[in-house]
Structures are given as structure tokens and as C-alpha cells.
């Protein structure tokens, strides 16, 4: 018995130039916020961008973006909804606000289903908001998505960074490219993250301030993009010359 879905995933993503998984070791470090803001920032630079919320059991990008009803269309596959210049897919379109308790095998199945059926079309960037840690979704993405790169989010907390070290260790073992590490919710000077990341030979991309205005801006992308958090992320992003063809190759 053969599951035919995995054979079509490569074709579904053949017109996507760069796939970036925004990941971290722990929940609550700001992965979804970084993923959403990164996607919006790139879209406002006129790149073609998709945002895929892969945190099936605790999705939150729809709340950050203020998406009320982003149901994908059905046309020989799943056609992502268009929100704020992004092609957008979240399981919330199907599970609504109900709890969706899933075990590992279910997460894998849902992930394969959505990657096999979603027609993203031409994209410069597909930003994937990952669930925390190194379990099913992370392992499946590494296994199934050729050329995927990881952008790692941590906080200054040694607890958060300790879990990130495990994620980075796994990615290194499996030879999965890491674009770099972003330190979120920075409140005071600390070199723990930057020093460790640099010592590991990885790019430390910069820190993002703890910005109370981010909470107030949830659900309003214009307000979000005006926060110090978003401006600093845009500054980090702007240091990178934007040609998705070679930048992330």
C-alpha cells in the first residue's frame, strides 16, 4: 500500500523560490509574530509571499493578522486565501475556533495533506510558521521539503536558548541550512544568545525589543508594522540583499 500524496509535494512547490521555516525550541518566544511580520514585510517590498501556519494545534497567525474568514478556494486543489498581499493557509479555515487535539501521526497526515493539495503557484518566499520543538512537523518538513531553510527565534532566556541549541544541533546533524537566529523580546543587554550563535558558526541576525505595543496591534497589520518590533525586524531583513533566487540558494 502506497500513499501517493508525498510524490506530488515537489511539484506543488516547484514555483516557490525560497521556503523558510520560522522555528524555535519553545512555545511563546514569538515565532508566529516573527513569521507573520516577516511575511508582511517581504510582501510590502513587492515580493510574492505565502504564509503557511503549520502550528495545527495552537494556530495564531490568523489572530496576529486579524483574519476573520480566510477560507481557501477549491479549484483542482486548495487555492490559498489572499490576505494583506499574502497567500495564506491555516488549518483554522477548517477547524474554526474549536480545539483540534492531534497526535503525532495525525499532525504528519494533515501536514502531508495540505502540502500535497495546496497550489501556491509562483512565490518568491513561502514562510512557514512552525510549532515549537523537534517533533513531527519539524521532522516531516525536513524529510519532505527539498531546499527548506530554517530561521530560528529565541528569547534571551537561557531556558529558551537551551531548547534552541537542541534544534540547531538537529539541523546541523541533518545538514539543514539555517539562515540565522533572531533574539526576540530583548529587555536588557545580554550576550548569551549572540555569543553562542556566533561561536556555533551561525549568523546572529539581531535582536528584537520587547515591545508592549505589539499586543495592542494584534489583529491590525498596519499598526503591527508601525511597532518598534516590526521596524527592527524590517531593519534586520533589509540588511540582506533581496534576491530570493540566490540569497537563499
Amino acid at each position, binding site marked *: *500500500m502506497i500513499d501517493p500524496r508525498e510524490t506530488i509535494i515537489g511539484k506543488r512547490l516547484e514555483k516557490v523560490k525560497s521556503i523558510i521555516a520560522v522555528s524555535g525550541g519553545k512555545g511563546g518566544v514569538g515565532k508566529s509574530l516573527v513569521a507573520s511580520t516577516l511575511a508582511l514585510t517581504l510582501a510590502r517590498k513587492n515580493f510574492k509571499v505565502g504564509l503557511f501556519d503549520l502550528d495545527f494545534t495552537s494556530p495564531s497567525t490568523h489572530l496576529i493578522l486579524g483574519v476573520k474568514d480566510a477560507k481557501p478556494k477549491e479549484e483542482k486543489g486548495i487555492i490559498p486565501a489572499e490576505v494583506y498581499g499574502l497567500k495564506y493557509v491555516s488549518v483554522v479555515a*477548517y477547524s474554526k475556533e474549536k480545539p483540534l487535539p492531534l497526535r503525532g501521526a495525525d499532525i504528519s497526515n494533515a501536514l502531508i495533506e495540505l502540502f500535497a493539495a495546496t497550489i501556491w503557484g509562483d512565490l518568491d518566499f513561502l514562510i512557514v510558521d512552525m510549532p515549537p520543538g523537534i517533533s513531527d512537523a519539524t521532522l516531516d518538513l525536513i524529510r519532505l521539503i527539498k531546499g527548506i531553510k530554517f530561521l530560528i527565534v529565541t528569547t534571551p532566556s537561557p531556558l529558551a536558548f537551551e531548547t534552541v541549541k537542541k534544534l540547531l544541533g538537529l539541523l546541523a546533524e541533518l545538514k539543514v541550512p539555517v539562515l540565522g537566529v533572531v533574539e526576540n523580546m530583548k529587555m536588557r543587554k545580554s550576550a548569551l544568545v549572540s555569543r553562542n550563535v556566533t561561536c556555533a558558526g551561525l549568523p546572529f541576525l539581531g535582536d528584537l525589543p520587547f515591545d508592549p505595543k505589539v499586543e495592542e496591534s494584534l489583529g491590525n497589520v498596519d499598526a503591527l508594522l508601525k511597532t518598534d518590533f516590526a521596524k527592527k525586524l524590517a531593519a534586520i531583513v533589509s540588511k540582506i540583499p533581496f534576491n530570493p533566487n540566490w540569497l537563499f540558494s
Partner: protein
Amino acid sequence: MHEWALAEAIISSVSQIAEKEGLKEVREVKIKVGELQQVELDILEFALSELKMAKFKNAKFSIETVKAELLCRVCGQKWSFSRNKLDMETAEAIHFVPETVHAYIKCPRCGSPDFEILQGRGVWLESVKGVK
């Protein structure tokens, strides 16, 4: 998964198997479709016939539907999935992402959403036969 997307995945998979097995021509493809996904068989058959490649243009595609059976992990209750009890929106959600069944269906005995889909989820290629 949408029927067309599903058909594309089947054709892609059959093509890979044919190449791997060194088949010059594919004669028969047996497919199993889980009831949970509520695939429209007419559309799937039509899509398969439209997408067939030269190498298997004469192949017979047979599709068998497998009943969906669920097993509660908490109390051990086993039960069958019933499409008739679902409203259209819920049925559509489960059609696209069968795992959303865990948001909408509970164990009829203890009410837990922690159940296993024993069979009848997704689509499987049972066999691909042809001439070498």
C-alpha cells in the same frame, strides 16, 4: 484533498512506480479511498482519465471505498464514521483535512476527541500492475 489534486498525486505515484519497476505499460491500478475523506468517486475517475499519461492510457483504474472506523483511546469504544450526521461545512472541512475530524467528532460513549482512525482515512495505491 480535492479530487483533482488527489488524481494528480495518484498519477504521479503510478508514474514513479512504473519507472522504478521498469514497466513499459501499466495495465491495472488498484486504489483504496477512505470513506472519511468523502471523495466524489465520479470526479476522481474523470480526473484520472483526463490526467492519464501515454504509458498507462489503457490501464484500468479500480477504486474501492474503505469504511471509516474510529477507536476511542480513552474508553475503547469502536464506531463507524457517518457522513449523514454532519452539516455541509463540517463535512467539507473533513474532506479537505480529514484530521479536523478531531475538532468535530467525539467518542459516542465517553465524549473524548482522543480517538484513532483505524481505517478509512486518505487514499492508497494498493497495486500497480503492468508489462515489463
